[in-house]
């Protein structure tokens, strides 16, 4: 990759503490240079700044929400910059077009893409900066830049040496190179090493600032009463009693809700409790899980919009030796990040400042501007640390941001809108509920020859700006992982189709998105087929996957690591699943027992093929985290609607996995993978539920086709 000269601009700025020299490399597709003002804070479009004290500030176009890109993206710049790693200080970028994700047009964190989408851009930034620093040092010594070496932020020629900070100002005056060579993989010093997190110290002593921790003089806290049922509307409210609560200052309408603005959280909460509100009943009595699932099961009996069709499926089923049929059911799921949603808004004249843990900076910026009737450039977004995201903070509807702007505007004071856990669990934007129905015809060896797969569930992107990606009635996020499953490769007749019914319940992507259900349906059905054919589940899979060598390799290695063929003590059994998501393949073997009638997962063996592994320590953490997140859903996750109202409300009835249930999770990276770099924040989530369900079958002969998994 080469860069044109016009892609680079340089600038210097005065920071509060004195002269801070900066040079910055804007987005490689930016059309024209932007020269910042000679004074004022560092320009908003820089990716790296080097101060006279050698501090290297890395500006991150993605949000740190636990996945480790605070460290990972910094590693990419530092690898090429050859700076002193201990001088690296990451910070979140403001919302700016220049920080849009390459090839996406919006500034976002999602799709397990922070590292692989930035792998080139951040390394180029580092290499370009190093080149300028070296040339500046060489010019001072009047020697050839090629005769200089760089290590740990020090440029050396013979016996002379200069620190980065000493030449940063001169480097800034140079014209950036039109193109810079990047290191060969064999020369990497940081990439591929287990590098510890740069955000650990502040997260270990409580000083890390999350959105919830934002505070400044004059800031008020607001809680919002939202409709108690999906589809219900605000009719009228009386805020008199709320205003009697000590500390409550204002009660304002949000359009379809009522906000109580107070001096602090507790007053706002008591004030909200004291509101008298009349809501209209939801139309048609509101959604109920029971009727929804009955409707979905009915819909699943006939094909929907075609996502993939090859050959004559009905004919194939008719001519098959036998046909296996199964239905799989998936409930609505809340993301339930540990930090409840919150958003701080300060409106000052025609300017608006927002502090919120978001995965969607420029989307939220645009949404806030629309509420205020202004342009996005008038809205500044500050991104503190995110206390978990999992997709909930990447909302095309910008619900929690829009609402907070409405409240701040109506209240006329800066406010932090805080959601309680109950608000979060009952607030919508869930992983949709789904029903899958698969009919699979097999030959006399038990191999599939015809596969009809119907998926039923709400579209995540319908009604959003992403809806343009719906093709021929198919939202890819509903069928990813079923459509084009490697198991279908050798099946001569196959059809994957989709029904996308609508409801009043807003839905959203949830860690690993469509794979959360497609992996379960595919891997459960394959397991059923293997057992029906009386074949070993691993051997059966390997035979079907003969055209997918990466799957074969991951599965074989996972089986090997887990000791698949080794006998287990009585009361234990293993199950397996392998699935690709976001370009990475993950094979998982779960070792399961039953204690007091409950499923207990003891050991999970994961093998991951994600291509180049930038930070194996972060990858291990992400894979373990995915397993926990997926296991919480597999064992407990379920939202139940009655009359449009969510019955669950907090962690006592929407249960996360807890420490005493934590299995030992081992993570092995596929050695020497030369595959294109995949994502890592999500892919390991999907295989755990089917691996556990398949183990439960091996142990109990109970085939559990409904999530969460419950033994009869």
């Amino acid at each position: 990759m080469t860069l044109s000269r016009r892609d680079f601009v340089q600038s210097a700025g005065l920071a509060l503490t004195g002269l801070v020299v900066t040079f910055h490399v804007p987005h490689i597709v930016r059309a024209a240079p932007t020269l910042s003002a000679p004074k004022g804070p560092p320009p908003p479009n820089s990716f790296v700044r080097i101060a006279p004290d050698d501090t290297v500030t890395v500006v991150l176009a993605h949000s740190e929400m636990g996945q480790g890109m605070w460290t990972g993206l910094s590693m990419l710049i530092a690898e090429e910059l050859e700076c002193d790693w201990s001088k690296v200080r990451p910070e979140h970028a403001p919302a700016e077009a220049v920080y849009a994700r390459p090839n996406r047009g919006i500034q976002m964190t999602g799709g397990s893409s922070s590292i692989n989408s930035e792998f080139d851009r951040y390394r180029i930034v580092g290499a370009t900066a190093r080149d300028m620093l070296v040339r500046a040092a060489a010019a001072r010594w009047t020697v050839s830049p090629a005769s200089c070496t760089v290590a740990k932020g020090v440029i050396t020629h013979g016996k002379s040496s200069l620190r980065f900070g000493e030449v940063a100002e001169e480097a800034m005056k140079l014209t950036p190179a039109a193109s810079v060579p990047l290191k060969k993989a064999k020369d990497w010093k940081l990439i591929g090493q287990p590098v510890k997190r740069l955000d650990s110290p502040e997260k270990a002593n409580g000083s890390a600032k999350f959105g919830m921790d934002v505070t400044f003089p004059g800031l008020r806290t607001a809680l919002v009463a939202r409709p108690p049922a999906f589809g219900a509307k605000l009719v009228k409210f009386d805020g008199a009693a709320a205003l009697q609560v000590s500390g409550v200052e204002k009660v304002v309408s949000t359009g379809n809700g009522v906000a109580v603005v107070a001096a602090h959280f507790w007053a706002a909460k008591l004030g909200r409790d004291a509101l008298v509100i009349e809501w209209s009943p939801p139309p048609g009595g509101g959604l109920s899980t029971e009727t929804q699932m009955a409707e979905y099961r009915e819909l699943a009996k006939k094909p929907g919009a075609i996502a993939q069709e090859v050959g004559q499926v009905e004919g194939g089923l008719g001519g098959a030796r036998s046909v296996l049929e199964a239905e799989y059911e998936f409930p609505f799921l809340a993301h339930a990040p540990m930090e409840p949603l919150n958003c701080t808004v300060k409106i000052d004249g025609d300017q608006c400042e927002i502090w919120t843990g978001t995965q969607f900076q420029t989307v939220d910026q645009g949404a806030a501007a629309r509420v205020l009737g202004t342009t996005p450039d008038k809205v500044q977004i500050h991104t503190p640390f995110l206390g978990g995201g999992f997709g909930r903070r990447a909302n095309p509807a910008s619900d929690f941001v829009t609402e907070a702007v409405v409240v701040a505007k109506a209240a006329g004071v800066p406010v932090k809108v805080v959601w309680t856990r109950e608000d979060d669990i009952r607030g919508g934007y869930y992983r949709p509920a789904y029903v899958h129905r698969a009919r699979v015809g097999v030959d006399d060896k038990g191999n599939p020859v015809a596969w009809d797969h119907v998926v039923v569930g709400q579209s995540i992107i319908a009604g959003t700006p992403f809806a343009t990606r719906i093709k021929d009635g198919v939202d890819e996020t509903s069928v990813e992982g079923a459509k084009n499953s490697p198991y279908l490769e050798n099946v001569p007749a196959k059809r994957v189709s989709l029904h996308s019914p609508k409801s009043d319940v807003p839905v959203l992507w949830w860690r690993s998105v469509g794979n959360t259900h497609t992996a379960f349906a595919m891997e459960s059905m394959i397991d059923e087929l293997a057992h029906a054919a009386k074949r070993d589940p691993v051997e059966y899979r390997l035979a079907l996957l003969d055209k997918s060598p990466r799957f074969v390799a991951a599965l074989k290695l996972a089986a090997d690591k887990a000791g698949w063929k080794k006998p287990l003590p009585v009361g234990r059994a293993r199950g397996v699943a392998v699935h690709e998501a976001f370009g990475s393949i993950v094979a998982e073997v779960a070792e399961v027992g039953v204690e007091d009638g409950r499923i207990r997962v003891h050991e999970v063996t994961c093998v991951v093929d994600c291509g180049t592994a930038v930070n194996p320590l972060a990858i291990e953490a992400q894979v373990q985290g995915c397993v926990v997140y997926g296991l919480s859903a597999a064992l407990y996750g379920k939202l139940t609607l009655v009359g449009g109202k969510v019955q669950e409300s907090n962690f006592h009835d929407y249960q996360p996995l807890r420490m005493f249930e934590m299995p030992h999770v081992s993570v092995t990276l596929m050695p020497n993978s030369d595959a294109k770099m995949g994502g890592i924040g999500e892919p390991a989530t999907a295989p755990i539920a089917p691996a556990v369900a398949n183990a439960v079958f091996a142990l109990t002969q109970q085939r559990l086709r409904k999530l969460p998994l419950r033994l009869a």
Partner: protein
Amino acid sequence: MKLDINGRVHEVDAPPDMPLLWVLRDLAGLTGTKFGCGMAQCGACTVHLDDRPVRSCVLPVSAVGMRKVTTIEGLSTDNSHPVQRAWIEADVTQCGYCQSGQIMTAVALLDKKPDPTDEEIDTALSGNVCRCGTYMRVREAIHLASKLKRGVR
């Protein structure tokens, strides 16, 4: 009313039913203690009351009196406490939001049981939810902190 927080006396103007959590966060400006559930289900709000771990989200401030309140900020601000050192060395944290509570629970456990078994860790820490799934490294860090504290590493 007066509160002894991290060895300092704070004068706060709080209604008696206000949970200690919100007194700490909104009145004393100590935001290291986190709000996660508001009903003693997740442990993000864990602080010490006279060295015992309590859920500050359900503890009315009027029940605190002059007992010593210790928050994450009171362990050390420079991460010199052995549990904090172990946390960093084991690379435990992910999003970090639950970690103050995990650390405070771990500190209280180690005060009672200097060399806990996995089972004792599981029992003590099961009230602390982590949605990122850091549990394995939490266990590892507690074993490491135990060694650091006892000077065997």
